[in-house]
């Protein structure tokens, strides 16, 4: 019954076209397409429930019945292929008769509870019932009732309303790649659900809410809070990953009520990751900082903006006067807007300091000078699905950039071989063709060995540092990876979040480039948040906007290692947003004056900002500011604010502008954000994935510790906003941070019976639950970053784990 979704192809050759007629209109149709597809393209609406252009065709609702000349009975338009000379009638008396009959059947068991149903007002069943239903039901018998199971914090279920279209089931199988919902029972007893009570775990799960044509699956956080017709939709862009998914931010009054995907075939198609869909909950949280605050003699006072700005400006000026401008540093959250990045670096540089950075989870900056203008995906997002071979290096693509993960999965479904060199045997929704799962240090060598295996094709690639490679002997998996990459016409190497935060990230980048070059593959880098905007806005210490020369300064790591006397922190929570959280805290505590532009009030449970900050300036989040996010393709997407800032909060670009004025700097007289955009616009910047030249200066690898920490920041810990979204925080993807090791390792450490363990890394220590995880390689311990429980631990290097005292 099931047919694969039609792959999109370019214009068909004329021989593929046949002539058909719908409602008396003649038109050309591609052979093999279904009547509903041709009608949709021609703007002729045929009612439907189960058909969805992104899902396979099952033809089980029968709502799309149409009349076809010479066919003996009504035909489902979604499953009837066109034929030459076919005459279709979608609104004839016979067609309407069938459609109405189907509607009557569908309504037999559907509860007529629209007044208490969240789908009311945007419900295809309600809409179609208006057009095709009767005003009075002939059905007087009992309706069936289905008991609901709790399927997690994001999706509310009312399965009595389900009409069994199976869109949600097909979504799981075909798009999310994990089947979590199914149809159990049969006939009148068929139910859609999980059968046993369990939370769905897909990072794309919220999409079933959009797909469900009735109120069976609705948004739990949004439930019972608004009606669709009360909402005003605003175009927006998501800040949480480098995809820049398009959003409809829906607002009632000044409050963001929910976020839905805005269809963009080039980026997110009609999908949205759960992170992008539910992070809005945080912008309405009680933790929002709404009024500027200053700290005098360790007492926090709410003040008006001009007092706060004056206080901030004079504090920063004092640092400059006493210690010189070089003692100022600025850290920006990767999710800041392009304009914010630009103005922050402009302010710092005009004050005389080049110490600005947004790469808070990077620790190796040794290739800054040769880096491309920005970390580029190496192709368009849509092109990812045309790859025939993909090598993921240090990437949990599925969870870190769910939309890119979906594109690569599409490629995989069409036969692409996906391979990985990763520190964890991540749970992808498909089988990896080849994989090397090994400790962080060995990952680098493994990549070098893949390069060596490829050097037969291009011996030149080893020329620069033959001594690096001479002792390396590729293992079978590495040979296979090399062979697949080289053997396919369209192959690509993708460097993920873990690769970017790796202690030898620069070596990984060079090696990846060698591999890509030898295999004729594209090379893609995935930055966090609006990281591309950070580079293009000049919020890096070694370059100005768009890669121009500018006053240079210190990287994040250097600012932590040689703490500055004054800091400006834009939108970041240093302990949680910096990979080296303990170092970041030390640097902040050592500073004499810290200005924080913050969306949320610092909580003493998670950070010491209330002790080290001197000024807190309420910053507008992505829903309340205008700005631009540049995604990994280099696509700049500007957006307006969906709603006015909460309380006294202000858009970052305005705060920075006025701060510039207060500090007596010229060039901060923008009237609108367009002035900022005009000033930072450097025209079209040709993307490039390549390093300017390859510097293989360092040693290939260092000493491997007996037990190495793998630090990864899970998807719902990446920024201050998602960390405060209650729905996301309660998902199965966000358990309380554990320590994970494989059973062998646990045994080797004599921890067989331990429930709680104490981890020591660097100067930090944490006591956490221990989990057996066969996905973690030998010699490694996985402890997530981005959590208040774990930030004190050094992110890389030697780590020890012992049974917790008293446990």
């Amino acid at each position, binding site marked *: 019954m099931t047919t694969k979704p039609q792959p999109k192809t370019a214009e068909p050759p004329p021989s593929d076209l046949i002539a058909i007629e719908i409602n008396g209109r003649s038109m050309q149709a591609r052979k093999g397409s279904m009547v509903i597809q041709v009608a949709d393209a021609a703007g002729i609406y045929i009612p439907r429930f189960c058909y969805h252009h992104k899902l396979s065709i099952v033809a089980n609702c029968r709502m799309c019945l149409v009349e076809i000349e010479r066919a003996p009975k009504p035909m489902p338009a979604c499953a009837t292929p066109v034929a030459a000379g076919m005459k279709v009638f979608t609104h004839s008396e016979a067609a309407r008769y069938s459609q109405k009959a189907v509607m009557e059947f569908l309504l037999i068991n559907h509860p007529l509870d629209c007044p208490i149903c969240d789908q009311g007002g945007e419900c295809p069943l309600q809409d179609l019932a208006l057009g095709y239903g009767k005003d009075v039901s002939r059905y007087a018998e009992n309706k069936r009732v289905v008991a609901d199971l709790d399927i997690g914090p994001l999706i509310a279920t009312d399965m009595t309303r389900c009409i069994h279209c199976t869109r949600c089931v097909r979504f799981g199988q075909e798009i999310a790649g*994990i*089947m*979590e*919902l*199914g*149809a*159990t*029972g*049969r006939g009148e007893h068929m139910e859609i659900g*999980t*059968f*046993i009570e369990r939370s769905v775990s897909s990072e794309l799960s919220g999409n079933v809410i959009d797909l469900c044509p009735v109120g069976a699956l609705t948004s739990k956080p949004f439930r019972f809070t608004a009606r669709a017709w009360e909402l005003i939709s605003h175009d927006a862009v998501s800040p949480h990953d480098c995809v820049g998914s398009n959003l409809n931010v829906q607002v009632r009054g000044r409050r963001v009520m929910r976020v839905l995907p805005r269809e963009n075939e080039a980026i997110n198609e009609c999908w949205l990751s759960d992170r992008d869909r539910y992070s809005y909950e945080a912008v309405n949280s009680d933790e929002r900082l709404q009024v500027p605050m200053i700290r005098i003699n360790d007492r926090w006072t709410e003040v008006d903006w001009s007092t706060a700005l004056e206080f901030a400006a004079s504090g920063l000026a004092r640092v400059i006067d006493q210690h010189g401008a070089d003692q100022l540093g600025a850290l920006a959250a990767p999710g800041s807007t392009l304009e914010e990045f630009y103005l922050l670096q402009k302010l710092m540089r005009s004050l005389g300091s080049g110490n600005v950075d947004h790469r808070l989870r990077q620790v190796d900056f040794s290739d800054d000078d040769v880096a491309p203008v920005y970390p580029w995906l190496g192709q368009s997002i849509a092109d990812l699905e045309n790859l025939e071979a993909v090598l993921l290096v240090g990437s949990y693509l599925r969870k870190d950039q769910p939309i890119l993960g979906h594109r690569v999965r599409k490629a995989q479904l069409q036969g692409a071989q996906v391979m990985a060199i990763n520190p964890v045997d991540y749970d992808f929704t498909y089988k990896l063709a080849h994989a090397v799962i090994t400790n962080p240090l060995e990952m680098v060598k493994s990549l070098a060995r893949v390069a060596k295996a490829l050097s037969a094709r291009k011996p030149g690639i080893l020329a620069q540092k033959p001594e690096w490679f001479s002792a390396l002997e590729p293992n079978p998996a590495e040979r296979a990876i090399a062979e697949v990459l080289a053997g396919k016409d369209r192959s690509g190497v993708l460097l993920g979040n873990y690769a970017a935060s790796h202690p030898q990230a620069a070596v990984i980048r060079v090696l990846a480039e060698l591999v890509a070059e030898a295999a004729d593959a594209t090379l893609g880098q995935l930055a966090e948040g609006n990281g591309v905007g950070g580079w293009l806005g000049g919020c890096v210490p070694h370059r100005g906007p768009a890669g121009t020369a500018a006053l240079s300064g210190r990287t994040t790591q250097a600012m932590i290692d040689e703490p500055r006397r004054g800091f400006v922190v834009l939108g970041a929570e240093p302990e949680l947003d910096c990979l080296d959280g303990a170092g970041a805290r030390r640097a902040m505590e050592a500073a004499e004056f810290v200005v924080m532009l913050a969306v949320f009030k610092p909580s003493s449970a998670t950070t010491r900002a209330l002790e080290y900050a001197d000024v807190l300036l309420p910053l507008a989040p992505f829903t309340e500011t205008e700005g631009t996010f540049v995604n990994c393709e280099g696509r700049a997407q500007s957006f307006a604010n969906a709603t006015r800032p909460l309380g006294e909060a202000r858009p970052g670009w305005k705060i920075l502008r006025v701060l510039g004025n207060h500090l007596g700097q010229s060039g901060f007289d923008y009237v609108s954000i367009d002035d900022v955009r005009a000033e930072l616009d450097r025209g079209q910047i040709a993307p490039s994935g390549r390093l300017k030249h390859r510097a293989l200066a360092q040693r290939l690898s260092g000493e491997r510790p007996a037990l190495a920490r793998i630090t990864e920041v899970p998807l719902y810990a990446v920024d201050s906003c998602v960390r405060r979204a209650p729905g996301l925080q309660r998902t199965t993807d966000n358990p309380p941070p554990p320590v*994970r090791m494989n059973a062998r390792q*646990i045994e080797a450490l004599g*921890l*067989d*019976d*331990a*429930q709680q363990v104490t981890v020591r890394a660097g100067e930090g220590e944490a006591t956490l*639950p*221990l*989990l*057996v*995880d*066969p*996905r973690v390689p030998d010699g490694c311990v996985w402890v997530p970053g981005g959590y208040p429980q774990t930030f004190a631990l050094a992110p890389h290097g030697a780590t020890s784990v012992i049974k917790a005292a008293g446990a």
Partner: protein
Amino acid sequence: MTAQTSPVSSIDLISPDSRARIDDSIAKYPPERKQAAVMAALLIVQEQNGGWLSTELMDAVAEYLEMPPIAVYEVATFYTLYDLEPVGRHKVYVCTNIACMLCGCQVIVDHLQKKLGIELGETTADRKFTIKEAECLAACGGAPMFMVDGVYYENLTPAKVDEILDSLE
């Protein structure tokens, strides 16, 4: 014991003997289609388990055939030949579909219920019998009929029912 990240494997619930039989079924299909053996596998583990399937056993089958558990639940809940709750030693499927109905299956059903003191879908207190309503079992020519432990009995009368049931252990 230290806690696990993933649910503990339930594959060991399948006995070596059942495993061998499942492998025989799997061998009938191309290697990448081993899920096609799901119906047979469920029957085999059901037999092993005294006639019914627990969720853990279904999970074990899912794991063994590398299928999502929900896809196994779908199959197990669709077909009447699987039971998801403990059953009696003998399963009686009485057909109540059209031909049997016209030939008086109601008499058979009433007799069974009265004789055993249970309703359709129930199990006797001594766990000897479970009676279930079945749709057409394709023996319409011998209606009314029932199936006991996989054996068809046709042209039933109450007396014949007594004889059949009384002969069972």
